[in-house]
């Protein structure tokens, strides 16, 4: 339950792993007027001021658990009306489709697909690149956005993923990264922002992004 005058950030718990780091990082940057709640209760999500959708693991399990826990309507409702941030597999879950696990239909909030880098992924010079893309890479901010505030362009964030998103609509791309190819790592539309990297593992720039989210009014 929300205390009077407190703003609530709901971290959606749909049974997919480690929410501890996400919640701890949000709490670390939250002021006394903000409370962070990890929840699987649709009523709490519906009542929250802001919603964060985390995600780890395989996409089929992620989407499956979102449906099994009955949280999809609350997720869609939150995306329609309040500041909403999706991270890592969360961004992939918002696409139309992912080619992981033999092909999985996702939530189709952003039109486009999640594709595999491939086990024979190579750099621009033909040298072999490791998959998963794991570690700290530079993020080019392709638009100005309140969630990028105070974060230098080309700042490094921590990534660990083997699939990447290609949105149909280029104007929704908010950031890109280079790993053998330039690919989308942040998407923005109205009150929804989604990133492929892990802000909670990305030291001060990641914490700044969470701080921006806590203060974001949902306007682009």
């Amino acid at each position, binding site marked *: 339950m929300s205390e009077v005058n407190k703003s609530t950030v709901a971290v959606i718990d749909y049974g997919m792993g480690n929410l501890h780091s996400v919640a*701890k990082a949000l709490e670390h940057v939250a002021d006394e007027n903000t409370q962070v709640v990890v929840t699987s209760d649709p009523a709490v999500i519906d009542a929250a001021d802001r919603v964060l959708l985390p995600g780890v693991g395989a996409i089929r399990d992620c989407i499956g658990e979102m449906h099994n826990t009955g949280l999809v309507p609350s997720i869609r409702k939150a995306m329609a009306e309040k500041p909403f941030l999706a991270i890592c597999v969360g961004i992939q879950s918002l696409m139309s489709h992912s080619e992981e696990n033999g092909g999985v239909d996702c939530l189709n909030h952003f039109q486009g697909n999640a594709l595999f880098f491939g086990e024979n992924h190579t750099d621009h010079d033909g040298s*072999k690149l*490791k998959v*998963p893309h794991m570690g700290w890479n530079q993020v080019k901010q392709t638009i100005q956005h309140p969630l990028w505030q105070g974060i230098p362009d080309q700042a490094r964030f921590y990534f660990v993923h083997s699939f990447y998103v290609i949105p149909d609509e280029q104007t929704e791309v908010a950031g890109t990264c280079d790993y053998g190819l330039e690919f989308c790592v942040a998407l923005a539309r109205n009150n929804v922002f989604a990133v492929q990297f892990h802000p909670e593992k*990305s030291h001060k720039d990641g914490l700044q992004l969470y701080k921006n989210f806590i203060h974001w009014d949902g306007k682009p």
Partner: protein
Amino acid sequence: MGLAKRIIPCLDVDNGRVVKGVQFVDIRDAGDPVEVAKRYDEQGADEITFLDITASSDDRATTVHMVEAIASQVFIPLTVGGGIRTCDDIRRMLNAGADKVGINTAAVFNPEFVREAAQRFGSQCIVVAIDAKKVSAEGETDKWEIFTHGGRKPTGLDAVEWAKKMVDYGAGEILLTSMDRDGTKNGFDLGVTRAISEAVHVPVIASGGVGNLDHLVDGVTHGKADAVLAASIFHFGEYSVQEAKQRMADAGIEMRL
């Protein structure tokens, strides 16, 4: 521009204290794990590895509390290894705030455990730790074998083949320690590092033997490692993580500075 190579300070923790032994004996105290982790975080460490080397299982609760304390204050990836034998062990560490777990001996005795863990939790959090020793004689083709029990027990498993098998089973990363070099300060075993890094498509962390900053550079440039792990050069204040990263950047390696 691109993905940076990583420096990973390693905390070998025994009974709640950071220690570092020379070839796993002669243990020296290097402080409180939470304080040490915070120091490395401030110095710009790219990740932290927490290795529980406590012999008895009685102190697992202590480890969980320490992992919780570190994860609440340090916002970079945290790997926890040592004594990970079941999916419940993994779940406990992930719930405490670990991002990845290192599986070592349990993988050797039950490779299916790696497959099960990767399916359950995702490859991204399964690091298979390999302790290798060179077993070929001078003049023979290089050959390295997997050892368990702190390098005392041979297994007959070829290190390169084993690494490939572990990746097929779902390992998302390989932490490779040379038991010949660990604690010696003579540098990584670059031969086995390169052989494994070139044989698998997942990242390889080189470990064992770092005595100076050039060894870290060599691990990446000659060993083809994606990340380098070191303990004692940082614990006893010889070098800071920041100095190490600068040195690697000066050598032309992509680093997060």
